[in-house]
C-alpha cells in the first residue's frame, strides 16, 4: 500500500510538472489587432446593460498562434495558451456582474488568412486564399482534444468564399483602432452586429455565409476543460480552407482528416468567470498517454481498495 501511494504521488508530481511546463504556456497577450488576427467579440443584444456596446479582444495570429498549436511538429503543439484577461473590459461594457448574464451575453471569434479575393489562387503562410478561422459554441464540457459543437462548412462558390473572408476581415477591422486591446466600441461604429445578427434571440447566419452563426451564450454554470476551470463559455475553433493545395498546411505537415471547405477542429477557446481567456489546443499523443496512465492508476487504486475491503 505504501509503495502504491508513493507511485501515485510520483505520478501526481509528474502530471503537475507537465501542467506547469508544456501544457500551460503563458503567452504574452496580443497588444493590438493586426490583419489575420483572430478576434473574440461580445454582444449583449437582449440585455439591460451594454446593448449598444461591442467588446473585441484580438487573440493573436490565426496561423502563428492557433494553427501552430495544432501542428504536431511545432514546439507549441498541444499547449494550453493563456491569452490574457478581459474582466475589466467586460465589466466596463456590461457591468461587474457580467457573468450573471447567461443566455444574454454572446461571444464568438473569427479571423482569416490569405488573400480574400475569389479570384485568387495564392497560398500564403500555408493557407490557401479565403481560408477562415471561425468558432462554434461548445455544447458542454466534453473532453479535451475533441470538438463538442456543430460543424462548419464554407461555401463552394469562390465569390461567396471571398465575401466570407472579406466580411470577417472588415468586421474585425471595424472594431479595432490599432492601439488598445481589448477594445470597447459603440455598436454603431462597428459592423460586428451586421455580420453577426440575431434572429428570435439566437445567432443567425454570420458574415452572410456561416449558418447558425459563430457565437454562443454565456453558461449559467461553470465547468472545467483540461487544466482550465470555472469556464463560462467555450468556443471550438475551426479552420476551413477552400482548396487542399500542395503548399497548404495540411499537406506540408502531413495532417490527415482535413477536408476542403469543412471545418477542421484546432482546439477550444475558453472564457473563465474571472475573465481569463485561454486556448486549449488538441493535446499531443504523449499527453493522451499520460492522461490514460492517470486514469489507469485511479482504476487500479479503486480496484485494490475494493479488493482489500472484500
Amino acid at each position, binding site marked *: 500500500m505504501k509503495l502504491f501511494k508513493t507511485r501515485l504521488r510520483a505520478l501526481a508530481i509528474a502530471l503537475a510538472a507537465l501542467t506547469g511546463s508544456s501544457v500551460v504556456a503563458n503567452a504574452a497577450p496580443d497588444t493590438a489587432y493586426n490583419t489575420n488576427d483572430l478576434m473574440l467579440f461580445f454582444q449583449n443584444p437582449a440585455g439591460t446593460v451594454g446593448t449598444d456596446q461591442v467588446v473585441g479582444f484580438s487573440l493573436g495570429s490565426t496561423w502563428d498562434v492557433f494553427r501552430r498549436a495544432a501542428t504536431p511538429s511545432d514546439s507549441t503543439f498541444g499547449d494550453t495558451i493563456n491569452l490574457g484577461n478581459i474582466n475589466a473590459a467586460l465589466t466596463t461594457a456590461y457591468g461587474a456582474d457580467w457573468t450573471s448574464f447567461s443566455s444574454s451575453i454572446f461571444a464568438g471569434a473569427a479571423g482569416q488568412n490569405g488573400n480574400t*479575393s475569389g*479570384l*485568387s489562387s495564392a497560398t500564403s503562410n500555408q493557407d490557401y486564399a479565403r481560408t477562415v478561422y471561425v468558432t462554434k459554441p461548445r455544447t458542454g464540457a466534453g473532453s479535451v482534444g475533441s470538438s463538442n459543437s456543430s460543424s462548419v462548412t464554407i461555401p463552394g462558390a469562390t465569390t461567396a468564399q471571398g*465575401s466570407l473572408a*472579406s466580411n470577417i476581415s472588415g468586421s474585425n477591422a*471595424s472594431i479595432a483602432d490599432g492601439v488598445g486591446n481589448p477594445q470597447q466600441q459603440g455598436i454603431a461604429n462597428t459592423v460586428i452586429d451586421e*455580420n453577426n445578427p440575431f434572429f428570435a434571440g439566437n445567432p443567425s447566419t454570420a458574415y*452572410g455565409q456561416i449558418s447558425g452563426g459563430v457565437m454562443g451564450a454565456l453558461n449559467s454554470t461553470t465547468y472545467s476543460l483540461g487544466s482550465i476551470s470555472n469556464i463560462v463559455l467555450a468556443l471550438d475553433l475551426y479552420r476551413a480552407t477552400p482548396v487542399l493545395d500542395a503548399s497548404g498546411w495540411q499537406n506540408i505537415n502531413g495532417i490527415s482528416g482535413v477536408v476542403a471547405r469543412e471545418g477542421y477542429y484546432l482546439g477550444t477557446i475558453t472564457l473563465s468567470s474571472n475573465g481569463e481567456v485561454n486556448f486549449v489546443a488538441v493535446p499531443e499523443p504523449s499527453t493522451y498517454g499520460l492522461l490514460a496512465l492517470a486514469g489507469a492508476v485511479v482504476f487500479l487504486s479503486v480496484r485494490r481498495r475494493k479488493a482489500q475491503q472484500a
Partner: protein
Amino acid sequence: MTIKHLLTGALALGIGSTAFAQTTEITITGATAFRQATMRGIYEAYLSEGALGTSFNVAHNFTGNNLSQLIASNRAVFSGKFPGITGTTIIRTSFNGSTEGLNGIAGNNNPVFLQVSALGTPGANILGGVSGPTETLRPKFSFSDVFQSTSPITTDLNGDPITLQPAGASAVGVVTFTMVANEGAPAAFTNATQQQCSALWSSGFAPLSLFTGNPADTTFVFATGRNDGSGTRSAYLTEWQFGAANLVNQYVATAAGVTVSGQITAITLVPVGGTGAGALATSGGASNASTLWGNDVLGNGGYSSSSALRDHMARTTASVTVYDGADAGSPLLEGEAILLLTWLSTADARNAVSAGAKLINYNGYGVVPRATTDPLDFNDTGFSEEDFNKIISGAYSAWSYQHLYHWGTLSANETIWRNQMTASGGWIEDGLQLTANGVRSSDMLAERSDDGFPIFAQ
C-alpha cells in the same frame, strides 16, 4: 424745399440704400446625384428675374461655359436678384455627397466653397473652369438622397445630438436611379435583380452568367460605386436590403488605368485609405476612402463623386489588370476583358449613356432618362410616358426621396429661398422636369416610409 423734406428724402435714400445693399447668403452642400435638378432650378430661378450678365452672374469649377456643364459642376457661385428676396442673393454650392453633406451642416466637416470673388468680372456668359479662390465653411443647407436616420450623422461639432430640420418634412422630390454597365457590355446583359446586386457587392465580382443565365458568359462583372459619404450608395444598399452601414467590396479605376482615352486598363479593390502606392494609386486618390461609418477598410471605399464614376462608365474594359488593393506586385487578373456594374442617378446615367455606357434594367424594369427635346419625352418629365408611369406607380423601385435639410433656424430670407425652391410648382420641381433627375412628389402615386422600404400605392 423744407428741412422736413430734406430729412424725409435723406431717410428715404438711407432706407433705399440699406435695401439695395442687403445681401442674402445661401450655402448648399450634399447630394451629387441631385445636383442637376438643384442647379437647374437655381439657374432658372435667377433667370426669371433677368438676363445672365445683367441680373445675375455665375461661375463654376467644371470645364466649359454651357448650362449643361454648370449643372454638372461640384462647386458654383451665383450672385444676383433671386425671386422673392430683396437685394442681392449669393448662392454657393459645394456638392460632395448626401451623407457627407449632412455631416457638413452638422458642423463636423466643412466643405470647400468658391468665394464670391471667383465670379471675377461679371459677363454675359456662364463662367466655367473656375477653381478658386476657395474657402471652407459650415453650410446651412444640404440636399440628401436619404433620410438623416439612414446616415451615421447624429451629433454636431460639439458632440451634442443634432436633429436636422425640417424633421419629418424634409422631402422635396423623388430622385431616380438606374443600373448602368460600362461601355462594351454585351447585348445579353440586360437586367440585374436585387439579389444579384446584393451578391455582387458582397463578393466584389461575379461571372456575367449570374445575370444572363448563360454558362458561357464567363466574363467577370465587377462592382463599382461610391464611398460612404454618398447618399446614392445608401440608396442602393438600402434598396438591395444590404444595409447602408455594411461593408462592400467595390473596385475603382487606378490612376494609371485611365490614361488611355476612352479605356480603363486597370482597376483595384479600393485600398484602405482610398488609394495605395504604385500601381494601387487610384484615380480619385484618398477621397475614395469611406470614413463616415468608421470603416475605412479594404474594398469599402468608392468614388467620392458621381461625375467621376459616370465618366468611367463610359469607358471600355477590353483588356484590364485587376489588383486586390493590397499587393501591387501580384495582380489577380492581367489583360482580361471585364465589365463594370454600378448604380447612378438617372441624370448622371443619361450623360454616361450618351458617351457609351449601357442602361441595365433593375428587377425586370428599366427606364430611359431623356432630354426634354427628345420626341419620346412625356410632358417634360425626362422620361417616356411608359417609364414615367413605372416610377410614379412604384413598379420601378430604384428611387428615394430627395431631402433638403438645414441646421439651426432660418432667417426670413433663407425661409423665402427655401419656400421658393421647394413649393409645389417651385424651382426644384422645374429642375426635376428639365434634367431627368427624378419626378415631382406631387406626381407620385406610390410612397415608401423610409429608404429601401416597401412601396405602397397611395
